[in-house]
């Protein structure tokens, strides 16, 4: 029998992402961890949630893990294969209609205390040390939808000031979005890392540690965060049910496209 109690922080991260989706919500997912998380959510926590992707594929139910948001695996048996511009319009109209249904997952290379995210470059934009892909759909998503940010928890990524804002978060605190022309009633809801889950203070809009994994600690989170972070409200999150781990390893990502099974397990 395979061992499903030896869960990894990455698996814990996927499950924590999954719990961010409320039942009945429409989750904008990409590939990778958010898709794994959304798949877990759809099977366990939020069976009535629906998945959409920024390329315009609405109401997806991939059987095999897609590699990109334009993948045929997303297209097969989805609800509608919309061109991208209709997705953009849908996203904007959800805000215009004051609907609270959208929850989106975005990633990045750097994040600041207000959840502003950089996925464009390290260093000066014009002479970058490292260049990434650019915005993709993330900027539009961060404009109109509530987001869950997914990022590796490292000091060099959690920075007081990031090099470039690809996807706006709460800018510099309360009222920050409005003054720049962004919808004020949308923004990042949580940051899910390999160490825990961070949320934003309702008053200050600054990040605080809301939960950490059994295998991590508030201290470890602070050590890996490049700015002062409030850990006083943090709770230890319960470990995952082995059945959930089994589901991820055997059903959702059997090819280990995005989550590697621990070595002792895969060597078995």
């Amino acid at each position, binding site marked *: 029998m395979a061992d499903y109690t030896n869960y990894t922080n990455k698996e814990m991260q996927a499950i924590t992402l999954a719990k961010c989706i409320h039942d009945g919500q429409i989750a904008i997912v990409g*590939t990778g961890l958010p898709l794994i998380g959304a798949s877990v959510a759809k099977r366990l926590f939020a069976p009535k949630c629906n998945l959409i992707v*920024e*390329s*315009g*594929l609405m109401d997806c139910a991939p*059987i*095999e893990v*897609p*590699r*990109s*948001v*334009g*993948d*045929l*695996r997303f*297209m*097969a*048996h989805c609800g509608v*294969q*919309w*061109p*991208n*511009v209709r997705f*953009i319009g849908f*996203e*904007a109209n959800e805000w215009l209609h004051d609907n609270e249904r959208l929850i989106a997952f975005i990633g990045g290379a750097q994040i600041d205390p207000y959840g502003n995210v*950089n996925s*464009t*470059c390290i260093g000066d*934009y*014009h*002479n*970058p*040390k*490292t*260049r*990434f*892909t*650019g*915005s*993709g*759909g*993330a*900027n*539009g998503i*961060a*404009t109109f939808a509530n987001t869950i940010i997914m990022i590796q928890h490292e000091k060099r990524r959690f920075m007081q000031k990031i090099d*470039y*804002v*690809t*996807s*706006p978060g709460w*800018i510099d605190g309360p009222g*920050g*979005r409005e003054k*720049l*022309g*962004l919808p004020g009633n949308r923004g990042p809801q949580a940051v899910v890392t390999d160490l825990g889950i961070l949320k934003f203070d309702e008053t200050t809009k600054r990040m605080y540690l809301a939960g950490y994994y059994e295998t991590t600690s508030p201290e470890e989170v602070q050590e890996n965060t490049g700015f002062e972070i409030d850990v006083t409200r943090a709770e230890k999150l319960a470990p995952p049910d082995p059945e959930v781990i089994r589901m991820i390893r055997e059903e959702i990502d059997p090819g280990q496209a995005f989550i590697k099974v621990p070595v002792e397990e895969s060597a078995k």
Partner: protein
Amino acid sequence: MSNKVCTLQEAIAKYVEDGDVISFGGFTTNKKPHAAVREILRQGKKDFIAIAGPAGMDWDALIGENRVKAYINCYTADSGVTNVSRRFRSKIEKGELIYEDYSQDAIMLMLHAASLGLPFLPVRLMMGSGLVDEWGISKEVRKTIEKLPDDKFVYVDNPFNPGEKVVALPVPKLDAAVIHVQKASPDGTCIILGDEFHDVDIAVAAKRVIVTCEELVSNEEIRKDPTQTRIPCFCVSAVVHVPYGAHPTQCYDYYDYDNAFLKAYGAASKTEEDFKAFLDEWVYGLKSHEEYLDKVGASRLTKLKVTPGFGYAADVSKED
């Protein structure tokens, strides 16, 4: 109705010009007109103003070969294979590429606005981000590039909502577009299956449009079910019958991506030398798409065929 069928060599020679403002259809690793891109590489066409939608190895290879004068961009990666295209990254890090970042939403709407013939495009996008704070191409440099608008964007007031500032985006004027479709007829009528992405937009907006197709069908046949057609003959300059013309990317209802090939490109493109060698082997060393297909190999192509009922190359051989 005129017959627009020609060879890939003829189509690229005639309808893609140095210095063109140009856009390709498809989405990162789906339905990219790669056969046409390889022919563009072979013919030495250059100085493009690229309005790159979600790009991958198509624009990465042209950037690596210094064919791009200005790169208008939102995303460049064979996503799921490389997390960023390597020539694109390298040229930017070395300061050797003139580039401008928009969000994907913005670029797709700009191409759509071009297809609608709008004079400019007001949006509530990019605000509060580096996309408005930073201009990849300064106004001064823009003025030296004839086919680029002088401004990346301009803030304007919403005349119907006093006090609201929105972002006005320029509407690109495409000289050329290249798309790959499932079926086309000699007069240029096209059937697109699966997500059309921005393919119809650029086909309407561009002055010259090259269509490569998996299957060439008669003008009569393609009109039998107009619920499937997406582009009228009037928009198309050339029709080229290019089976597997999107390889190594996907083509809905026809074939899946060739992941090994994309990976090989991803690895090779990490260094200038390996990148050059890869192109020598897969582009310049081959005279035509036919030679390319033979080199890829019939059995390999066969394995990419989509599994009926799935829409991708699913392995159902182990089903109970």
